[in-house]
Structure formats: C-alpha cells, structure tokens
C-alpha cells in the first residue's frame, strides 16, 4: 500500500528577502510567458476578428513555423529562417484559404471550423511523417545565446528578451495597421459589408486570403521563435493549442488588446500560482486522520502550485459565466 504522506510543502526559514526575490522573478517570468502567449494568439485573433473564422489549425501553423524554422536554420541560418519560414507558412495559409475555406464559406461557420479541425490533424501527421516524433535539436542562435541581465542571481537569457521585443513589436504593428491605416479600414469593412467593399473596387476574396495568410504567418513567426525556447516536436501543437483558445476567449473574441491583456494576465496567474505553496490544509490545519487517504484529503491537501496548469481553464469558465463576451469583446461568444 502506498504510504500516505501529507502534502506539506512549506519551505522552512523563508525570509522576507526570499519572498521579494520570488515575487520579482515570478513577475518577470509571468510577463515573459504572457508575451509568448500573445505572440501565439495574435494570429488567431487577427483571423477571427477579420474573417470570423475560428481557426483550429492555428497551433498547427505554429508547429509548421517551428519545423520550417528548424530546417531552414540548418540550411541557411537562423536569421534568414526567421524571415523565410513565416513566409512559407503564410503561403500555406493563403492556399488553405483560397482552395479550402473559400469554397466552403457558403456552408457557414461550422463547415469552416470542421475544415480547420481536420487540417490540424493532417498537419500533425504530415509533420511526424517527415520529421519523426522525437524532439528536434533546435538551438538558440549563438548571437543571442548569453544572459541579458541578472536579477537576484537568476539569469534572463537574451533570447527571451528578444521574444518579448518581437511580441511587443507585433502588437504595436498590428494595432496601428488595423486601426490607423487604409488597409485596416478595408479589411474591417470587408468583414461587415463585403458587397459594398467589392463595389468600391476592392477584391474581397483577396483581402480575406491575405488576412488568413498574415494570421498563419504570425503563427509561423511564433513557431520559429518559440521552437528553440520550448520543444520542437510533433505534439507541440496539441500541447499549446487549448491555452490559445483560453487567451482569445478570455480577452474577448476578436479583440487584439483583449488578447494582449489576457495573455499577460494568464501568464502572471500561472507563474504566481506555481510559486505558492498554500493549500486548504495549510490555511485551516490538517484534516482529522479519520478521513484517511480519500478524495477529501486529496482536495484538502492539494497545493495551489499543483493546480496552476488548470487555472487558465477555470478562468475560462468563470469569464464565460460572468462576462460571456470576454474582457474586451464587443459581441457574445
């Protein structure tokens, strides 16, 4: 019989300095992770807000980006790969829109959703057929392989700062393009008034194709950049896919700023939750031993850090109950 050990994880002799250290470091980690989430979800948000298509294959485009990035890095180096791989993924995205989504558009959103759903499986199988199922040896470029700064003797790699910068730049660029330029105006108009836009002499079909391409390319950028920082292997899409939906639903479907805030929030919540050791047992004292090892003692003794990974999904449920359109969303989901 497995011996029952109370899950008392309390760290002894925790001085105030260490608490401060943990707060500062968790904040930085949370922001870094949040920005990565935004990098991943930006393309998904763009496609949804501009086309109304919930792209289930988004995480697969991200995976394609990582594998193309890995392969091109082998052949021509990281920096050219950072440009070429997203272009390739974008081209695939455009092809999917042109020859897949466009032809089934008339059957409504369910058909589109099912198409992207199937596509996600197809891409995963193709990737594991070509590259196998083991993780790739995809390394951070030598130019960025040094600690950028040190806080409380914890290093922050330059590469993570680079990720942060790219993510921030993409946010600003997208916001300006969509809100302040003619291109953004036409794209937004094409969603609500496609016939009017067409009558004004714009090719609506091409606008949609480009939007989908850009969304896929953004996923590609995320893949190339996140590949070396996380693992590049054929199940990476399934691993990150669900949390992207949490981000965009939480932020409000189709809202770029909402996705940005939601990414940071979820990043911080998850990071801080891991750092906390509190449990019901810690707050109210251990349960009476007569309960024995049962489901009640399990719940009683579980620490916040243990449930950290499911917190985003709890948040998803909560926000749907309290505010169904999400933080910054303008319509019901």
């Amino acid at each position, binding site marked *: *019989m*497995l*011996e029952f*050990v109370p*899950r008392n*994880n309390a*760290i*002894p002799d925790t001085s105030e300095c*260490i608490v401060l*250290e*943990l707060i500062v*470091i*968790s904040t930085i*980690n*949370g922001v*870094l*992770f949040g920005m*990565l989430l935004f990098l991943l979800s930006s393309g998904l948000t763009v496609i949804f807000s501009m086309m109304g298509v919930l792209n289930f294959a988004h995480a697969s485009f991200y995976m394609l980006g990582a594998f193309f990035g890995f392969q091109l890095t082998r052949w021509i180096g990281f920096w050219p790969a950072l440009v070429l791989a997203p272009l390739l993924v974008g081209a695939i995205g455009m092809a999917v829109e042109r020859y897949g989504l466009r032809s089934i558009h008339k059957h409504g959103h369910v058909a589109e959703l099912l198409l992207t759903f199937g596509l996600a499986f197809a891409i995963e199988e193709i990737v*594991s057929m070509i590259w*196998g*199922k*083991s*993780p790739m*040896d995809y*390394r*951070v470029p030598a130019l960025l392989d040094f*600690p950028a700064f*040190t806080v*409380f*003797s*914890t*290093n*922050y*790699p330059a590469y*993570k700062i680079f990720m942060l910068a790219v993510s921030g730049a993409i946010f600003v660029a997208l916001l300006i393009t969509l809100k302040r330029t003619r291109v953004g105006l036409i794209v937004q108009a094409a969603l609500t008034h496609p016939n009017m836009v067409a009558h004004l002499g714009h090719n609506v079909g091409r606008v949609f194709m480009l939007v989908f391409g850009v969304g896929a390319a953004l996923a590609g950028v995320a893949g190339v950049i996140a590949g070396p*920082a*996380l*693992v590049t*292997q*054929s*199940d990476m899409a*399934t*691993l*990150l896919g669900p949390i992207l939906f949490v981000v965009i639903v939480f932020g409000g479907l189709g809202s770029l700023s909402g996705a940005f805030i939601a990414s940071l929030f979820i990043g911080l919540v*998850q*990071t801080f939750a*891991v*750092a906390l050791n509190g449990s019901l047992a810690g707050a109210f004292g251990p349960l009476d031993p007569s309960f024995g090892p049962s489901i009640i003692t399990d719940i009683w003794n579980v620490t916040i*850090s*243990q449930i*950290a*990974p*499911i917190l985003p999904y709890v948040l998803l449920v909560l926000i749907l109950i309290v505010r169904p359109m999400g933080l910054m969303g303008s319509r019901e989901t």
Partner: protein
Amino acid sequence: MRKTLTMTVLALSVLGMTAMSAAAEDTLKIGYIDPLSGGGASVGEGGLKTFQYLADELNAKGGILGHKVEIVPLDNKTNPQESLIQAQKAIDSGVRYITQGNGSSVGAALEDFVTKHNTRNPGKELLYFNYAAVDPSMTNEKCSFWHFRWDANSDVKMEALTSYMKGVPSIKKVYLINQDYSFGQSVRTEARKMLAAKRPDVQIVGDELHPLLKITDFSPYIAKIKASGADSVVTGNWGQDIALLLKAAADAGLKVNWYTYYAGGAGGPTAIKQTNLNHQVFQITEGIPNSGYQPAVDFEKAFRAKANMSLWYPRAVNEMRMFKLAAEKAKSIDPVKVAAALEGMEFDVLDGGKGFMRKDDHQFFQPIYISSFGNLTDKETFDEENTGWGWHLVSKIDTPQTMVPTTCKMKRP
C-alpha cells in the same frame, strides 16, 4: 547439367516456401504495447526499435526453440484504457506474451488485466514482461505471478541513489520535483524516507508535484527551486518533463546538481548539452554505454549502427535473452512453463555481473550504475544524440546492495 540446376532451384524454392510457411505458423509473437503516438511517442518508438533489433538478433540464431520471434507493435497512446483494448486485440491475434514499459499507470492496469484474464482462461495464459514501469506496488501489494519486471523498481533506484548521496557531504539542501501520478508520488515519498534515514542532516527545502507531460515552460518552478536555496534536485521526471526542466534551469543559470532517473531519454542529452551543465546531471541505470565491459560495448556499437539510436534499455536485452533461456529450460514456449522457469533464474546481465529474478515478487535484481553526463575522456567512446558529451561512470552498486524487501504474497497457479 542445366536440368539438375533447374531441379535444384525448384527443390530449394519449394523447400524454402515450406520452411517459410512453417515458420509463419510457429511464429512466437510478442505484443509490444506502448505509445506510438502522442506525448510519449518518442520514447515508445525507441523501445519498439530496441525490441525489433533484439528479435532479429534471436532469429539470426534460430529464434526461441526454433520459433521465429516477431514483435507486434500496438499503440496505447500512454492510456491505460487503450492499453487494455490493445491487449485484448493481441490476445485475439494469438499473442501469448506482451511487453510494456512506459507509464506505471498503464503497467498497473495491464498487470491487473493479465491476472484476471489468466484466471478466467486457463490454458490460454498470457505473460506480461515489464521493462520500465517502475511503480513499486506492482511487485508488492499488487504483485502477480504473470508479471515479471526487468527494470529496477523505483524504491531500488532510490535506495541506490540515496546510498550514493550519503557519500557526498556537499549535499545539504535537497529539492524534490516530480510528476503528479503514482510513480512520481512514490519517488518523493521514498526520497523523503530514505534521505531522512541515511542523511538526517540533509534538509528537504522543497517538494513539488506537477502535472504529467503538460508543462511547456518550467521557469516558474526553477525560480522556486532557486529561492529555496537548494544545492541538489532529485527528480523522477521522464520524457519532455525532464528535457524542459533542464532547459529552463540552464536558461536561468541555476547551478545545482541533478539526481535523476531518466535524464538519458529522448531529448534529455540534447537539453543537458544546451544547458552546459557539465557532469552535474546524474542518472541511475542498469547499464551505461561507456562501462568499458567488452560484450556491452560491442552490443552498443552494433545496435547504434543498425537502430541509429543509443541503447536506452539494456534491461530489454536481459529480458529477451532470459526469455530464450527460460523457454529452453522449460523446453516449451507455453507461458505457464516459461513463467515457472523464470522464477529465481540467475543471469549474466548485458553490462556484466550477476542478476537474478527474485521468486518472491518477480522483480529482477542486477548491478546498478550511477553516471554523470558531460565531457568524455579518450577511453569513453560513446556520446549521446551527437552532442559530443556522454555518460561517465561515477559509481557502481552491486546486486546485493540493491535488494529491498517485498510485501508480495505470490499466488501461484
């Protein structure tokens, strides 16, 4: 002349065909039930290649009692429920032996299934050869006559690991981080118990459980380890959970020693090399490539040349070779007779030294090695995953020192 030649060719091909069909009828099928898709696929594929290589090796020498050995791959997606479906599928296609390793949750389910099946279907018994599911309960309170384990169980590994740590005075503060399921929980429980007994001066400064194969970024956990002031980390993590953990540690510049069960699995060595933790990551196994023991070195060389991977599972070699010996001893491939022959069997293991299959609980005991990963000396010829780094022998624990008691009350048919 031409006529005789034609006749000979004809006769030979007829002979060959009959030989082939006879072989097909007498094939000894082993169902390999492990993940071939999903998060565990990279390890599962490695295991499959290993067993196929071993089957080829046996077949080149006439198979087992003249039966050709065939490995039947069955994908269980690291899921206990799916494993039982696959096991039933195997039984329906005439399989009498199954082998499995990844995930003690799967292992426990299979052990239970096999036991029930054998009680209900006398004469159609199934044997379960376990090469890697190390949850101690499988050879203790849940033990079964129909289950044999070649990997040292988690308690044995922890016993050996803590015996080694006992002799390293620089260890003062230990942090435990493990996967939140039966195996990870048994690692942390035993680590606490054994460290308290062997090194009462050592402080456990953290004890973490995280979800199995779900974390993509371990930075928050690393921050916590750092804040705890630990100088050593003990972990039973496997697959991407160990690779990503080490990667996050390197990024943050965490300078601790790692005492691990599975740092050598797919992606692990690559991650350690990226982290630049030279000889700071320790692993506990039943064999290492650079042991210098000639038969093992020769095997490793031949295996790498053909399978294009390093030998993760020396225990699989022991398993298949002992299977052959047991069948020969029993003069039968009937599972009941083979099981009886395996009980208490002594065997010279691949990496040298004596091992034996304990009759009381069907746990195999063998010499255990602790090795560290890093720069190689001139004599150490094998690196891992093309990193240029490899495993260096640190300590060898002989069979008698690996013995742990069992609570198993074996029910024999």
